[in-house]
């Protein structure tokens, strides 16, 4: 290629014109507003979870901005709605990292969506928070999973309900990785406590007719049902179960009921007596929580949804990240990750939440509660519970260069007896 005058001028002019844009890109992470991206389903079958999460995230960011932002910079919140479709998740994840150059992304509701986008954030070095209760097993230096895991909740729920109701447990669960793996945890804890998991059934997310299963539960002689059903369509299980008069004779405990505010969607007679365990309930009796609930209701007005673990943890997740940014003095990814993993914690509405550095999961309080008249009465409180399920398989302190989902092929493949 010969360089003539015209070509020389063209290239030089091009470079000079493009220079500000390049510089802008390089410096984006230290000037201007901090970019906080949230990808959560606000429509489609998963909206019952996503909408309160988005409301709580917005509240957290607004509070931070009212208090002067972080490091003297405003926080710019961008919310994407993937419409309960995995395809949109991957699309928005790429947009958030490559397009928006987000400083942090809080995203994902189902475990299927988390696994679809987690590798993207890992590859593009974008800090990622997943604030949803899930089956455990993510071992990723770049990903902080702040929600509760089965060793924190199911391990308490199973012995309590078996003592109360009986040893034969019938398991119904959603048919994707969360339901499949959680069902294995339930089986394990039922056996550990000397019980018998008589049958396990999985349901695609759009099933609405549970009649044949309800008949099977009747004929199985089960003492109780453990439900890990997910999404709007599955709420009909609880209705049909009550309509067949079963909720009086074979009670239901659940690892998911209530985090989509299902207890407000079915009537008191249909729901009364159900027992659940989460790291947050709106009914927690502490000044911090009462204040949080009051602020949320004042902000949302008459349309305020009920608060649950997913919403409260989205709020706390944002604050955990903000605390780490303050500690690190920058929004750069590695210093923030190091700050988070230094045993950093906050006092949120659910109580103390601390990051556990071996797993990037959270040490958190767990509450056991019984449903009565569409609200949960807290029966037991367990403080500062470790994510001992994920601790079995993950040690990021020994080997930080990991980005895997250890329970991808079930618990047996991860070396855990069920």
């Amino acid at each position, binding site marked *: 290629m010969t360089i003539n005058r015209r070509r020389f001028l063209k290239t030089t002019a091009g470079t000079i014109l493009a220079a500000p844009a390049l510089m802008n890109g390089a410096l984006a992470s230290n000037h201007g507003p901090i970019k906080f991206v949230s990808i959560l389903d606000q429509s489609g079958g998963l909206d019952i979870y996503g*909408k309160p999460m988005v409301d709580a995230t917005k509240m957290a960011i607004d509070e931070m901005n009212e208090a002067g932002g972080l490091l003297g910079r405003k926080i710019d919140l961008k919310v994407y709605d993937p419409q309960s479709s995995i395809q949109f998740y991957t699309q928005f994840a790429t947009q958030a990292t490559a397009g928006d150059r987000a400083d942090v992304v809080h995203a994902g509701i189902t475990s299927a969506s988390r696994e679809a986008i987690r590798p993207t954030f890992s590859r593009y070095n974008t800090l990622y928070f997943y604030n949803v209760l899930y089956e455990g097993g993510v071992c990723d230096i770049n990903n902080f999973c702040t929600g509760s895991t089965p060793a924190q909740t199911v391990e308490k729920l199973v012995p309590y309900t078996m003592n109360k109701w009986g040893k034969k447990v019938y398991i119904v669960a959603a048919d994707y990785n969360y339901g499949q793996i959680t069902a294995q945890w339930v089986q394990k804890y039922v056996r550990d406590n000397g019980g018998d998991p008589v049958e396990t059934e*999985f349901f*695609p997310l*759009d099933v609405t007719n549970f009649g044949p299963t309800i008949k099977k539960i009747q004929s199985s002689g089960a003492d109780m049902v453990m439900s890990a059903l997910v999404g709007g369509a599955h709420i009909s299980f609880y209705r049909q179960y*009550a309509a*067949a008069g079963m909720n009086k004779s074979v009670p239901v405990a659940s690892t998911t009921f209530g985090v989509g505010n299902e207890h407000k969607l*079915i009537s008191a007679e249909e729901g009364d007596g159900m027992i659940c365990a989460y790291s947050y309930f709106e009914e927690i009796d502490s000044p911090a929580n009462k204040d949080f609930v009051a602020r949320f209701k004042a902000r949302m007005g008459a*349309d305020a949804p009920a608060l649950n673990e997913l919403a409260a943890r989205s709020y706390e997740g944002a604050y955990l990240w903000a605390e780490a940014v303050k500690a690190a003095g920058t929004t750069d990814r590695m210093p923030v990750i190091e700050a988070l993993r230094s045993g950093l914690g906050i006092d949120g509405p659910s109580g103390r939440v601390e990051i556990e550095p071996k797993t990037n999961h959270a040490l958190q309080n767990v509450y056991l509660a019984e449903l009565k008249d569409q609200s949960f009465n807290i029966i037991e409180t367990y403080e500062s519970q470790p994510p001992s399920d994920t601790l079995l398989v993950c040690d990021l302190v020994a080997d930080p260069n990991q980005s895997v989902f250890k329970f991808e092929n079930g618990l047996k493949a991860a070396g855990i007896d069920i």
Partner: protein
Amino acid sequence: MDLLFSLALQILYGIANLALISLGLAIVFGMMRVINLAHGEFLMLGGYTVVVATNNGVNLWFAMLILAPLVVGLIGLIVERCLIQWLYGRMIDTLLATWGLSLLFIGIITSIFGASTSTVISPPLGTVTIGEYTSSGYELFLIFVVIVLLALVYLTLKFTSLGLVARATMQNSDMSACLGISTSKIYMVTFSLGAAVSGLAGGLLVPITGVLPNIGVIYIAKAFITVISGGSAILAGTTSASVLLGGVNGIMSYITGPTFGEVALLFAAIILLRLMPTGITGRFFRKSQ
């Protein structure tokens, strides 16, 4: 024995459920050849009619049995006059137009009521005890309603002048027009009736499944599969396809679980359409309605 009986009842309910969600579509698509992709949304609108009515203190039975079909029938009338009447005989255009309509309905309902609606309507009628098994009384009531509904549609088509004229119009509209029948009016009435039946079905399902703006998506595929498998005679077709597919689904769900229950339903439909491309009534009961 008790188990067998209560299981049979459960399967019967599965069949009735399938017939219920398909009957409105059988009239609109099976009879009028209008591919109505907004059928699921007609069911959904019936559901919301019941929710809104009962929230305002209307009696549940009145809301389900009278208001839901009335309101959705009226919506059907408006839809037919504004949209469908220009599209008869243009299958692909109808498909696109009704798909758009379905998205529009979902959008409107979502923006009015939010994406998840509290439907605190418990199934009425309590429980029925069979030996040591209990069944929902409301499910038995639905089986009864479906039988009555099928009988009503049969009697209307067979023994009323409206039924006669409608059948004539669907078979040969030009000839009917020559005989002085206003075919445009007949199309309008038939479409509205189909919508009304869908509304009734949607209303009746509320206590069992609740209602969400996009709940129609769950029904639409099953409704189309049932109607297409049934073939051209809408009553005999819908009934026989419901019995076959609902029965297969119910039995397989009981034996293996719901995932294979759904698979078995689809598998049965594929085999059926491979062997009888024009549906069950394309091969059998040819002279039926």
